[in-house]
């Protein structure tokens, strides 16, 4: 099928970009950031075509968790390329592209969501809810990658080893601040997405909160990132502590998004 082939090509492009980014980090040879960007943008284009073809073929993008991964992966690459374009952070690619590949793999081989349009899935509000939440996830995932970069560079600096890796990684301050900016931008988006979900639920089901596990984990995730922002702004939690909090946040995102989406727990986030 056309859309699978396009997504497959995008996968290859992303794999190439990730590979080159990794080599740039570890090798002594001069880094080739342009190649990473080129492959990233090509993959993005192919990926978009694949998603469009997927919709044209009648498959829902938001039908099931695995399908949304295709969209999340695209948003992740787009946001990463934007961050790189704006703030110049090519080495982040080595951490971002593996995540992208995992998500895209899920989209390609994961079980299909419902084939027919379930009535409760209709609605513009639903689409907005999902899109905003996914954008939030993407910001948090990128912040997680920045946290990994921070922890790696911090470890090298504290161990007093100026290796090749240390030279290619950005400074601890850059990693730390980029993570903060990402969360600062993504958190309001995520919050809005959750609120719209609440409103939509009240409109279609008459209740604000259904009490299903996914919902609970969503609010937990929200709380973790709220705590991150609060600690950072109010009490000056910078550097290692806030990086650790981002790791916790990542775990929450994974559980909320993927685990809760896959487990057969009753509640209104089940679509099958």
């Amino acid at each position: 099928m056309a859309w699978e082939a396009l997504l497959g090509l995008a996968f290859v492009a992303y794999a190439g970009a990730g590979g080159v980014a990794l080599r740039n980090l570890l090798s002594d040879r001069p880094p080739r950031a342009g190649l990473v960007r080129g492959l990233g943008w090509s993959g993005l284009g192919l990926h978009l075509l694949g998603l469009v073809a997927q919709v044209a073929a009648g498959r829902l993008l938001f039908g099931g968790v695995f399908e949304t991964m295709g969209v999340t992966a695209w948003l992740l690459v787009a946001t990463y390329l934007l961050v790189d374009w704006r703030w110049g952070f090519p080495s982040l690619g080595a951490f971002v592209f593996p995540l992208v590949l995992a998500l895209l793999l899920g989209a390609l081989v994961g079980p299909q969501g419902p084939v027919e349009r379930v009535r409760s899935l209709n609605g513009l509000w639903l689409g907005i809810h999902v899109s905003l939440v996914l954008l939030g996830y993407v910001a948090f995932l990128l912040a997680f990658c920045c946290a990994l970069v921070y922890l790696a560079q911090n470890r090298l600096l504290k161990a007093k080893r100026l290796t090749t890796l240390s030279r290619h990684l950005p400074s601890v301050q850059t990693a730390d601040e980029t993570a903060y900016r990402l969360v600062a931008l993504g958190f309001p988006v995520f919050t809005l997405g959750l609120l719209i979900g609440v409103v939509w639920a009240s409109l279609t089901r008459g209740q604000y909160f259904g009490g299903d596990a996914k919902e609970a984990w969503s609010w937990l995730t929200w709380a973790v990132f709220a705590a991150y922002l609060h600690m950072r702004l109010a009490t000056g939690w910078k550097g290692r502590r806030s990086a650790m909090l981002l790791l916790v946040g990542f775990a929450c995102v994974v559980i909320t998004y993927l685990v809760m989406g896959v487990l057969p727990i009753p509640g209104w986030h089940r679509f099958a």
Partner: protein
Amino acid sequence: MHLVGVGLSHKTAPVEVRERLSFGPGSLGEGLADLHRRPGVQEVVLLCTCNRTEAYAVGAEAEPAATTFLIAHSGLAADALSPHLYLRTNQEAVAHLFRVAAGVDSMVVGESEILGQVKRALEAALAQGGAGPVLDRLFRTAAAVGKRARTETGIGRGAFSVGHCAAELARSIFGDLNGRRLLILGAGETAELTARHLVTGGATSVFVANRTHTRAVELAEQLGGRAVHYDELLSAMEKCDIVIGATAAPHAVVTRDSVAQVMRVRRNRPLFCIDIAVPRDIEPAVGTLNNVYLYDIDDLSAVVAEDAQQRSREAEKVEAIVLEATAKFSAWHQSLRAAPTIAALRQKLEGIRAGETERALRRLEHLSAQDREAVVNLTTSLLNKILHSPTVELKNGLSAGDGEVRIETVRRLFGLDEGETEET
């Protein structure tokens, strides 16, 4: 068209001998003119740095001329200077200059000053009129090789000194050094050099604190900064990003608790502490605080030493680049030297061909125009085929260094110099 490089360096001569062969900006022009004037010398370039003096010359008498020139200029007796001089000819001279430009022959392997020095040597020689096509291309290629070596290998990478190391670490911590504030405790050459490295990297404000306030003022003036009173040390640290500890105090003057407090006031912005004092100024425990990076003199020296080791491991890769560039240059040089001979050979044989063909055609008047053309074509293609191999072999004479021999042989075998003056 002999190419030679004669000279001495820190590897072959102590400074007392090297200083006798130093050419300052004034005497460089004179030196170039002197060497250029000598008979049998067509091109000259002088490369002078504090660690080496090398005279490069092209010409039939280049070798003896350059050697006597250096001996004369040094004011030393021939047998006093000769043991320190090294001589390289043709391909060896080319390879040597490329190695020098790549920084492999320098005292601190991989340093980049030599690159500028090579370029300036060529500029001076061009201005004086001493450099010709061969040396011009040689030195330009050397600069390119030097640049390539630094881009493609790790020969120029890493910290070259404690100050340089500090600047690199600062970049790994802060990213951009622009606008960073620096606090120096105490004084001393290393502290000053380190501060200069950081300022060159972009650090702006410099604050200096010293128990003796006048010394703080002195150093602050030299660095374009401000002196602060010693008891205001901690509040100065609150505003700064980088601290250099260089006092002569017999114990630590900066404790862990005080830095912890400073960090709270600074809302945990990263702090870089460079402790180059012995005994150390900053309690080692300070390094365990979050967002504080503490390096003492041993840590910095260890990084510099490790980097120097890494650079010397890169020398192999540089050698590969040098050999490749040498082969290319020598091929060009060889074909340059061979060109007149190739042209002369062709001219001579063509003369024979034309003469003989004409004579034969006069006796073959009964042939049709077509047949006459065929005869002419036969002689032309015969000539081309015969010339092909000698032409190629002359151009390729660089390998095994027998280019000169081949040119000589061809000239003699075909009598190219009969009735003409010897080509120099």
